[in-house]
């Protein structure tokens, strides 16, 4: 092909439309970086409309009577903290504000119990709650299916001690919680398939009502449990966390992060549209070229 051809792919003769399809990735990365940083420095305060699932999540937690025991699994890895931690913080604040008693645990061995300990202590401290009386952290035990089923019969068999090594018989809260019969509600925060197991093993067998906060990529799958009423509410990703923060009136990290997420999504859509525009223009021109591909 000659360099004068608009659909030419040689570096010297690349057309505007061709360049539109092959922008250097460093430029894309810089734009993404800017889209994340700028709203953090100068918040845009974009409105976050509430979805029915988030509203249902809030209503379900809000309707639990004060003093009830809530099981709070911290089933997420440190890698997804940006999405899951705001949900966990908002959930803990909502529960503590309503004077619910929290039994924390984790089915993620690497980091789960440590994150649970940090969040329970810091948010519990905000509301002047006492460890062992208002909240406990059972920690982690291997083999989630055995843990989930076994707690239905006797929690002390699965967790003889809490995360700190205290026998759970010595914790005032756990003296009244021998198994699921004493648990009113389950509030799951998860970034993996644990939601499926909570639904299949605990909701189906023991009939415990539950809500879940999950990462955005997991939300479409978890939505099926909302329609079947196996989950009473759902928070999907940072957007779900931001909605929940606003419903509880405690706007925090997720609300601030939504501006950045919104801009990045918008930028990705622009990139996709840009690439496709270049692709279609070049394809259109190639179809209308005479045989040999050279313009007269």
């Amino acid at each position: 092909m000659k360099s004068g051809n608009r659909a030419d792919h040689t570096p010297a003769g690349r057309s505007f439309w061709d360049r539109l399809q092959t922008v250097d990735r460093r430029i894309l990365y810089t734009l993404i970086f800017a889209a994340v940083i700028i709203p953090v420095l100068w918040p845009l305060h974009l409105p976050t409309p509430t979805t029915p699932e988030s509203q249902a999540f809030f209503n379900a937690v809000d309707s639990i009577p004060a003093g009830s025991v809530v099981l709070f699994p911290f089933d997420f890895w440190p890698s997804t903290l940006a999405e899951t931690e705001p949900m966990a913080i908002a959930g803990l604040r909502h529960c503590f504000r309503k004077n619910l008693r929290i039994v924390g645990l984790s089915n993620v061995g690497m980091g789960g119990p440590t994150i649970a300990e940090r969040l329970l202590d810091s948010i519990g401290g905000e509301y002047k709650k006492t460890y062992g009386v208002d909240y406990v952290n059972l920690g982690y035990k291997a083999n989630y299916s055995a843990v989930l089923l076994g707690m239905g019969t006797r929690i002390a068999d699965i967790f003889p001690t809490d995360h700190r090594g205290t026998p759970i018989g010595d914790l005032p809260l756990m003296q009244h919680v021998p198994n699921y019969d004493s648990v009113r509600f389950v509030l799951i925060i998860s970034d993996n398939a644990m939601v499926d197991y909570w639904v299949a093993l605990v909701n189906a067998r023991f009939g415990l009502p539950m809500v879940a906060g999950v990462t955005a990529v997991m939300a479409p799958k978890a939505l099926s449990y909302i329609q079947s009423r196996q989950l009473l509410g759902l928070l999907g990703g940072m957007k779900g966390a931001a909605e929940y923060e606003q419903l509880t009136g405690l706007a925090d990290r997720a609300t601030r992060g939504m501006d950045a997420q919104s801009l990045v999504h918008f930028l990705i859509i622009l990139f996709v549209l840009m690439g496709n525009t270049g692709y279609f223009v070049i394809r259109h021109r190639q179809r209308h070229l005479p045989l040999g591909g050279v313009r007269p």
Partner: protein
Amino acid sequence: MKTRLPVVVAFVSGALMILSFFGRGPLVDSASEVALTWQTIVGGFSLLLGAVSIVRVHWRRVATRERDRFYSLSLLVCFVVMAGSGVFFGIERGTVFERLFNTIQSPMMSTMFSLLAFFIASAAYRAFRARSVTSAILLLTALVVMLGRIPMGQLIYSQLPAWADWVMSIPSMAVQRGILIGAALGAASMSLRLILGIERTYLGRG
């Protein structure tokens, strides 16, 4: 005996779990309680087995001076430091383990995950082309859902969130349910094969 005993153990454990799922009673409850306690103990040992295995593999790489032995060495050092700090000084708040986790491991894992935003943006830009009718439908649907799930989408067109919700709760849900039901049926049939001793590959033979 080597074959029969594991098959009998699998049958008894599996049958007990099925019984305990569909009905509760003192006998079934106490038997399943024992089985589940054993299961958590076995789970603990399998974690230990995993730890031993990873140490052996990487130790061998270091000992035989393989090309990427420094990665293995760094893994071994991190493993020893984290495990040692947890075992000898505890894992509760304020301990060395907790500080190492919160200041090194957790930020590193979050950093790795956050890099995904850059790669996804680049990959979407390069690979997401409407080359056929089906890929055009996929592209349009993705754009509607992505725009509908962010505040900016509502500012562009007020009905976009409703469209995105429709996509999520009708067509996407139909597919999700199909996958879920298929996977559940597959898991149930595989479990039955294991319980009845038809599937014996876990014994190390076909």
